[in-house]
């Protein structure tokens, strides 16, 4: 009996038990029991994922579970990678959630419904990568979408904006489902079977047009799940409004499944494709990377900022996936393997640091009731552990050593730069652009997280809520601590993933380049002769920092007398917190630089006093940076739909006679058509 089915069965059992516990238990103790069971789901799912990464495979058919189609499961290293990531995130976030729910009342995240749905959501996150037939996959996919949707709505009583976010999320995720359903249905009908095995076999006989159609439909659906621009509109709405534990799960585990789907369908099932598929994917990835991080740079809402950063990171991942497809199409399997490995490693890293960041943001939200960075500040002194954890997560997100994001982005850059060896005009144009995109987004990410950390946690508190903040309960810190340990491990010894990454890449038929194997301490690329030792980088940085600190201390000790002086404030009053940099003012130079892209809206209202137009009574200044793509792309569609609905209302005047008439004439028309037509 292999470990995988046992672990998956355990996960399913614990998930269902957790849902039942959430439903029946009284509010006291509900959070703890559900949290423990959810953590169990995560551990079991993660264990099966790790086992799959270790090289074991498992597949099974359970015919009786679903009518007509039955259910099919298969776990290989690729699904194992995503299961392991989801499992680890779920386990840590479940621990965090127990602490998070303790401070909430009977409504919101602590409610019966939310607590019953949380284990189910966790379970679907773990099970989606294990699905091995179209119907099983779609069923779990939709279950995941529905449970997450209901969890997003958990706090709808507290804020009206939750409802709007939920509507956006519901519509977007179901549009994605429609595309996915259409794509996979076409695929299954053309391939002559709906199990993944049958799809793999049937692909060869399909015409390129149909394959292209299937790919475009499914890739669009997966891109919408991964939050890629321009299908990202739900992400910066739903993630901030969801309870923070749910945001962490969505941002660190759910969006990954979009990438999983893309890799599974694009590489594994369809077996790669022509260059234009992957150029499309890369275009979407590059656009998301730059646009996502630009919007994150403009955001003042901490969770919205993190959500846009998710969009950026998924963009980078998808850029890597697209590059892998392009290399595979050109016949360079080694580079394709490297690009895909870099993309998958970035998925892992992003999950680790983003769940940590969302956890810390939730911690801040819980302590202050405030997400707006402009109203925070001074939290480092009041919530030192949360601040430290946020800093660790931010270090991962800025893609600088010694953060964990650096390693995967470095690999991604290596694959792009060495990809120039692949002959062809396309690569010669696309790859330098991709390198520029990665570099630009990494640079902007640094500004974004300096802003989030500096404005949110340093300086002095700008509001009473921020001044009264207190450190979060131990369990929340413990959950974040687990994630922080994961981030640190990934940053120091990415070799811990070992051969698992290679196996995951090998699933889709690329030669493993063993980027992170080889003793675990070095990232070595034999094929393209490049290497990186994260541990040495960290050691060198630590030594340098220590040396600088020690020298400064030593130099200052030689001073005879030390004096404490007040801050030089030009002799006027002490500077107030209102004078400090806010998130908006910090982002202002960037906003100026990218003025043409962002198209900020500024409005100055000057109200003169009644007696004289020269004396000003009040000046109001408003500055908004709307999501321009959303504005231009979605607003016309929504306006059209609203107008169509309004005009259709005339048909429904409220008179019963009219409705009866519709029925009668409709029936007659149908009969006429049937008589004439057939």
């Amino acid at each position, binding site marked *: 009996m292999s470990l995988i089915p046992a672990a998956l069965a355990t996960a399913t059992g614990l998930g269902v038990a957790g849902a039942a516990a959430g439903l029946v238990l009284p509010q006291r103790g509900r959070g703890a029991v559900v949290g423990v069971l959810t953590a169990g789901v995560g551990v079991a799912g993660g264990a099966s994922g790790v086992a799959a990464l270790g090289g074991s495979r498992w597949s099974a058919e359970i015919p009786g579970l679903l009518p007509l189609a039955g259910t099919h499961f298969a776990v290989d290293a690729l699904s194992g990678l995503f299961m392991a990531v989801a499992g680890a995130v779920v386990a840590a976030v479940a621990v965090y959630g127990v602490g998070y729910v303790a401070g909430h009342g009977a409504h919101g995240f602590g409610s019966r419904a939310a607590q019953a749905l949380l284990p189910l959501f966790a379970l679907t996150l773990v099970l989606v990568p294990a699905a091995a037939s179209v119907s099983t996959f779609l069923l779990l996919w939709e279950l995941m979408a529905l449970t997450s949707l209901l969890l997003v709505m958990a706090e709808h009583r507290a804020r009206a904006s939750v409802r709007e976010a939920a509507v956006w999320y519901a519509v977007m995720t179901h549009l994605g489902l429609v595309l996915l359903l259409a794509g996979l249905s076409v695929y299954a009908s053309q391939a002559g079977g709906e199990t993944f095995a049958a799809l793999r076999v049937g692909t060869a006989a399909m015409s390129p047009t149909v394959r292209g159609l299937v790919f475009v439909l499914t890739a669009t659906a997966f891109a919408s799940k991964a939050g890629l621009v321009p299908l990202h509109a739900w992400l910066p709405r739903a993630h901030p409004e969801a309870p923070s534990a749910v945001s962490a799960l969505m941002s660190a585990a759910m969006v990954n499944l979009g990438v999983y789907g893309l890799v599974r369908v694009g590489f594994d099932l369809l077996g790669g494709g022509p260059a234009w598929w992957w150029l499309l994917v890369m275009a979407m990835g590059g656009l998301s990377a730059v646009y996502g991080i630009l919007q994150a740079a403009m955001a003042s809402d901490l969770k919205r900022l993190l959500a846009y950063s998710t969009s950026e990171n998924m963009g980078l991942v998808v850029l890597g996936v697209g590059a892998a497809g392009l290399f595979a199409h050109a016949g360079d399997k080694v580079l394709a393997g490297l690009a895909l490995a870099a993309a998958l490693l970035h998925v892992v890293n992003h999950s680790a640091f983003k769940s940590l960041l969302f956890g810390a943001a939730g911690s801040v939200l819980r302590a202050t009731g405030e997400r707006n960075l402009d109203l925070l500040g001074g939290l480092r002194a009041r919530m030192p552990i949360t601040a430290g954890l946020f800093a660790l997560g931010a270090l991962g997100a800025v893609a600088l050593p010694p953060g964990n994001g650096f390693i995967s982005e470095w690999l991604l850059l290596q694959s792009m730069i060495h990809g120039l060896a692949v002959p062809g005009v396309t690569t010669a144009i696309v790859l330098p652009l991709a390198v520029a995109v990665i570099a630009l987004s990494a640079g902007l990410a640094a500004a974004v997280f300096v802003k989030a950390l500096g404005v949110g946690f340093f300086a002095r508190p700008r509001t009473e809520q921020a001044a009264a903040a207190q450190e979060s309960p131990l369990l929340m810190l413990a959950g974040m601590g687990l994630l922080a340990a994961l981030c640190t491990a990934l940053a120091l010894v990415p070799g811990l993933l070992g051969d698992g990454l290679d196996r995951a890449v090998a699933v889709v038929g690329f030669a493993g380049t063993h980027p992170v194997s080889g003793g675990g301490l070095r990232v070595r690329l034999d094929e393209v002769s490049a290497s990186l030792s994260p541990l040495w980088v960290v050691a060198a940085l630590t030594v340098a920092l220590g040396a600088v600190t020690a020298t400064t201390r030593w130099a200052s000790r030689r001073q005879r007398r030390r*004096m404490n*002086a*007040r801050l*030089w*404030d*030009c*002799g*006027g009053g002490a500077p107030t917190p209102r004078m400090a940099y806010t998130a908006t003012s910090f982002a202002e130079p960037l906003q100026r630089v990218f003025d043409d892209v962002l198209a900020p809206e500024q409005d100055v209202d000057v109200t003169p006093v009644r007696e004289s137009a020269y004396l000003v009574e009040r000046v109001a200044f408003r500055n908004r940076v709307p999501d321009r793509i959303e504005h231009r792309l979605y607003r016309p569609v929504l306006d059209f739909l609203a107008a169509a609905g309004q005009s259709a209302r005339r048909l429904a005047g409220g008179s019963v006679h009219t409705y009866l008439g519709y029925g009668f004439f409709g029936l007659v028309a149908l009969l006429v058509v049937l008589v004439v037509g057939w």
Partner: protein
Amino acid sequence: MGLLRKIRDTGRVAEPAPPEPDGEQPPAAKEFGGSVQVRCVDAGSCNGCEIEIAGAFNPVYDAERYGARLVASPRHADVALVTGPVTRNMAEPLRRTVAAMPEPRLVVAVGDCAINCGEFAGGYGVEGAVSDVVPVDLVVPGCPPRPAEIVAALRRVTGR
């Protein structure tokens, strides 16, 4: 090339420095080693003294050749050059300015108003002379003092 040669041939054309001023160098000034950074504080002056201070640092009097240099922050300064009677609004900023200067530090009161409120003594907005607010080490009398007198005072501080 011609310019360089001209520079070499001409040599120094500055006039020799005037004789050293009378008076002791203040004890704290010895630590400055001949290089003194000066911060001006207008504590309520009519700006007459400011014009003369500007004159003291112009090319004619050139106080910088004796080692005195104007700086923009008390954090960089060794000497505060305070002018005017200290008004109520400027009393606290003056105290803070002097407190913000690193030790050793000197306060030089420039002009009659700084020494004894001069014309403005007893005014409703006047807090008092500079010495009523911060300890004064050196005074430069005059309404306004001539640039040469200000330079002389600064030379006593720099010792050059």
